[in-house]
């Protein structure tokens, strides 16, 4: 992993889609800054952060993932979901409590890439992995991948489509065992992923990171009110432990409005159910016997 010595520009608050040229200019200035800038110059004096020369394996990637989950959640836009492409640069500070502060720059791709078109976005983020706090604190700005108007249009089209969907309670296992997602159900998957982004943001640490492995069931799909009310279960795959975590998620979405999410995940490994079926309800995890 390449580390740069120059401090990165402070992320712009508020607007998540600053004008691309301005950000690019800022990044350019930062990269071409004086090479002799000593480490730590311009850094805020708080909580005894010292620069960590030896980054724990994968820390930058962890930070990028957490930042992207938060970004996707905050954007609340199922048609504009992003995934990590490449971490380009970053550095980290550690404090006495072994908490991490990470500044990084990374590229992103669209979660749903369009045929032949390559949309590569760029983000800069500051991520705090704190031990007691429930979730990593994130500041992130990204270059715009899609025109705001286009995004709003697409979200609205998705919304209209979802409003007229019925009989989703039969939905079980998307994708199926063979990795197939019926095109008519693809928007459901995207919306489920959006809700899962909130969960994955909260649960990502410097050691743990998640992927949404499967939408295992739809508990409720209500469209009679204005918003889409979606109650479902997913399997999240935690990579370092290789565990499959069943989560029950309830989201309410209306295009252009911030996403509302509630969830409960099964936390501990539980003994094998006798029937072998997968259940992801809000069951209290059971403790295991001797090992």
């Amino acid at each position, binding site marked *: 992993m390449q580390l740069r010595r120059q401090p990165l520009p402070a992320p712009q608050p508020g607007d998540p889609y600053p004008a691309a040229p301005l950000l690019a200019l800022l990044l350019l200035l930062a990269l071409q800054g004086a090479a002799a800038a000593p480490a730590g110059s311009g850094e805020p004096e708080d909580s005894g952060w010292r620069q960590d020369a030896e980054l724990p394996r994968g820390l930058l990637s962890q930070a990028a993932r957490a930042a992207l989950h938060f970004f996707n959640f905050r954007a609340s836009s199922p048609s504009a979901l992003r995934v990590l492409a490449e971490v380009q640069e970053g550095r980290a500070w550690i404090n006495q409590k072994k908490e991490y502060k990470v500044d990084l720059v990374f590229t992103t791709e669209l979660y749903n890439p369009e045929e032949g078109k390559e949309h590569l976005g760029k983000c800069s983020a500051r991520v705090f992995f704190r031990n007691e706090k429930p979730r990593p604190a994130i500041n992130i700005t990204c270059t715009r991948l899609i025109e705001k108007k286009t995004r709003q249009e697409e979200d609205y089209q998705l919304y209209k489509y979802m409003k007229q969907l019925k009989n989703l309670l039969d939905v079980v296992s998307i994708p199926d*065992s063979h*990795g197939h997602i019926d095109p008519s159900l693809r928007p459901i998957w995207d919306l489920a992923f959006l809700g899962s982004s909130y969960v994955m943001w909260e649960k990502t640490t410097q050691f743990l990171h998640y992927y949404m492995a499967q939408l295992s069931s739809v508990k409720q799909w209500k469209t009679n009110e204005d918003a889409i009310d979606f109650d479902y279960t997913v399997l999240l795959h935690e990579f370092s432990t290789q565990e499959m975590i069943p989560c029950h998620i309830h989201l309410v979405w209306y295009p252009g409005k911030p996403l509302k999410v509630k969830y409960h995940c099964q936390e501990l490994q539980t003994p094998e159910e006798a029937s072998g079926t997968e259940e992801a309800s809000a069951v209290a995890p059971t403790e*295991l016997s001797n090992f």
Partner: protein
Amino acid sequence: MQGLLILSVLLGAVLGKEDFVGHQVLRISAADEAQVQMVKELEDLEHLQLDFWRGPAQPGSPIDVRVPFPSIQAVKVFLEAHGLRYTIMIEDVQSLLDDEQEQMLASRSWARSTNTFNYATYHTLEEIYDFMDLLAAEHPQLVSKLQIGSSYEGRPIYVLKFSTGGNNRPAIWIDTGIHSREWVTQASGVWFAKKITQDYGQDPAFTAILDNMDIFLEIVTNPDGFAFTHSKNRMWRKTRSLTSGSTCIGVDPNRNWDAGFGKAGASSNPCSETYHGKFANSEVEVKSIVDFVKDHRNIKAFISIHSYSQLLLYPFGYKRESPADKDELDQVAKSAVEALTSLYGTKFKYGSIITTIYQASGGTIDWTYNQGIKYSFTFELRDTGRYGFLLPASQIIPTAQETWLALLTIMEHTLNHPY
């Protein structure tokens, strides 16, 4: 025609739950009108329970009739007494039905040859085992199927051996499916097997490899787990062994090898996905390979294939210390990844297990490397998390194709750098 008749009888059997043991089908030739009439009289004798498949019509037309076992004697006496000529078309209807049933089941989901086998879909254990037999039968000079052990639940563990002769030549080992939910790996293994038989004698570089070395390919390294991913839980990773003292099932076969066994990088909790087991090689699926490798003594490259993450890894996973051959392994990995990427642009990272993915103890290639198998590598195939284990079947062949290029690079290097 006979097939249709048999089918209708079969349907009758299925619906009426009859059996046809000892029943015979007779073909009667009626020479003239009088004889036709006689057969019609026979038809009227209800107690005989005759089933005319082709009823009496006119002289010269064959008359086919199924005769239940109890009536056979009587009918034959009647025919002979009246000079009616007949032949026995079917000696025993039931055994014919049994054969037919078997054949119908056989042709329904299974390919008849490896040329009609569908490589672009995921298969069951039975289908893959059937494929192995087909391939070995089609290429008896090149391919043989070895059983190296039996799984915990008693399933045979098979390895395909590809050899053009010699006596215990230096060999390359490839395994797929050690973690059962990583379906693209078993599917790729099947494709590799076919590819080997296609390219030998056609592709000069590969022919040179197989002219001097043997290849061992274990496609379903964890058959119990694989069967379970089909029947009950698609996301099952481990073996299916019972652990005394726990209600949880299974050991992570990639934490069960005798290399840093039990150290940090595996779990001692039987319910965990990375449970290392009670002791090294406790899993018969692992022990079978260990025994094979030790008995063979001449394996020069060992490649264990997983998914997902798009990585090519070399030892170690259990310790930070670099292997003595680190520089060479890194070079080989670099070339292999370049070859892979050249096909579809799929991006792979490479490096040692512990620096590239995570700390993992008791892993396969750490053990094989410590045994002296220098070219020990692990692959993590597509993708990087969009679909994860549930990789769409449409990606099987592209994944196998690009991975094959990386494997070729490793195999060629092994061939050109004997040790």
